């Protein structure tokens, strides 16, 4: 049995029933729309292309490379799929991959599948698209722009998706936010680098062998604007929520409690964890560092957004 570390596939039992159901509803809506758009864009070809690409992504997740001694880097593939076939088909492809993984290989739970789909198929793709499309436009189609955008898109998709997973865990009361967010975020900030490297490697190969598959910057016309805005919105939202949650776990628990996630009689409010998580570094400082990173992302996002809209305002588009 191949052991593939799947740090982002949340198993059953970790999310509360309500959180699971909410994200099921959201994912179903998102997927229904993505299916419709994919049918419009790809037509008859969609079934074989999506199916076989999903198989390739699954197989691709088995390709590993050693990072240090025992650990290895792996691929999620949302960014690569988005770059190759566009955002809506990528949502469908990733949905296929994550669903079959859950159903057959128990990578991620069945009830939690809604949340996992949201994190990997929707957020992963939306953020990838947002970062990739923006950066490619900014670099005006230069070749190196392909690789820089690919790396950034891959990293961002993993990092932001992991924040979403952490918040879902926090909302469910399974993990205090001021631990889940830095932990998930920190781990996936590293994993994201691996994703970025593999994505760049794949893009380099495709650029050399089949340039037309990756050459052009994605056309905004293909309805990408909606996804782009979604990606930006999600990245901003999570960037804002995460440090807030991290610094104010009480606030989040209060919300959770009001929703009945925590059975009030049995589980008292989470207190702050011991004053420091890492030796010598206070909890607040950790949250601040995280907020700093995320704040940078927000600034970047805003700058890019402004540049993009100005550019498309000027151009005939």
């Amino acid at each position, binding site marked *: 049995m191949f052991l593939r570390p799947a740090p982002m596939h949340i*198993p*059953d039992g970790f999310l509360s029933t309500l959180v699971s159901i909410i994200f099921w509803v959201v994912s179903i809506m998102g997927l229904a729309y993505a299916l419709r758009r994919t049918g419009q864009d790809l037509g*008859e070809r969609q079934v074989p292309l999506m199916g*076989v*690409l999903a198989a390739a992504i699954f197989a691709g997740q088995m*390709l590993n490379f050693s990072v240090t001694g025992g650990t290895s880097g792996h691929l999620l593939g949302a960014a690569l799929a988005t770059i190759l076939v566009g955002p809506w088909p990528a949502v469908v492809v990733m949905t296929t991959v994550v*669903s079959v993984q859950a159903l057959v290989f128990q990578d991620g739970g*069945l*009830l939690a599948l809604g949340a996992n789909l949201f994190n990997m198929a929707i957020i992963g793709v939306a953020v990838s698209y947002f970062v990739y499309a923006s950066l490619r436009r900014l670099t005006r189609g230069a070749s190196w722009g392909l690789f820089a955008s690919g790396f950034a898109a891959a990293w961002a998709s993993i990092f932001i998706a992991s924040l979403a997973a952490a918040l879902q865990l926090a909302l469910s009361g399974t*993990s205090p936010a001021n631990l889940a967010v830095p932990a998930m975020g920190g781990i996936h900030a590293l994993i994201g680098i691996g994703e970025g490297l593999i994505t760049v490697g794949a893009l380099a190969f495709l650029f050399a062998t089949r340039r037309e598959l990756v050459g052009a910057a994605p056309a905004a016309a293909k309805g990408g604007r909606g996804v782009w805005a979604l990606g930006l919105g999600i990245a901003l939202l999570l960037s804002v929520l995460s440090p807030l949650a991290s610094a104010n776990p009480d606030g989040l628990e209060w919300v959770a409690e009001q929703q009945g996630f925590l059975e009030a009689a049995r589980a008292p409010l989470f207190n702050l964890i011991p004053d420091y998580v890492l030796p010598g570094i206070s909890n607040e400082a950790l949250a601040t560092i995280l907020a700093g990173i995320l704040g940078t992302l927000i600034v970047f996002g805003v700058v890019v957004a402004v540049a993009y809209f100005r550019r498309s305002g000027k151009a005939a588009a």
Partner: protein
Amino acid sequence: MHVHFLDPYRPLTSPVHALDGRVKFILAVAFILTVSLTPFGAWPVYLLLWSIVLSAEILSGLGVGYVLRRAALALPFVLAAIPLAFTTPGTPWLEFPLGPWQLTLTLDGLLRFANVAVKSWLSVQAAIVLASSTEFRDLLLAMRAVRIPRLLVAMFGLMWRYLFVLVGEALRLMRARSARSGIAQRPAAAPRRRPGGSVAWRGKVAGGMAGNLFLRAVDRSDRIYVAMLSRGYDGEVRSFATQPVPPGARVTLWIGLALLGLLWLGGTLVWG
């Protein structure tokens, strides 16, 4: 290269294997839902739920050992819940210093962690029984039965069909890579770079393999599309009319749902 090991289906003869896939699917999901809805601390309910899934494991001929081994592979995530044991306030049970700081293990925290672990463990066992006793084709029929769109189900089917082909290709690529990963024998004094290249280089190699896989996949999907067109494909997914669920399976479904419903009700009333 045959990659059958990836397929979790165990072809055995058992009442569980013979049970209609749609019923099994619904019961498995209902079981997981019941586990999820079971209130904190309802240990007798967990015990009863465990006995249900245990019976399924034994009845199906899969064996408890097999299911537990597969369950173990799926649960490293449980480590993520360990902090619960230390962060939930309550009566302190154990205190021990770890390096420069003091970790307090509370009883409530431990129980809370145990809850998450048990829920997770029970759910994954149900999922394993489902996947190991049901052919993938029947799982797809079950998905159609719960109204998942035809197109999506067709894509799942194609992914499954070509999973083994592409994983085989990936394994061959990795094998070719290992075959070229020897370290040159040189006299000790001769200058050399660190073998294995840099992390970035290795990442690029892995990426190149991924790109290779993707390219083959896109080309193959074109050929499949041509083959489908040649046999009359017009974009619509067509299949035979579905057989109705046999009465015996229907009865099993209702009994199972009723049992789970009772457990949920009991649990919620007493501990909810």
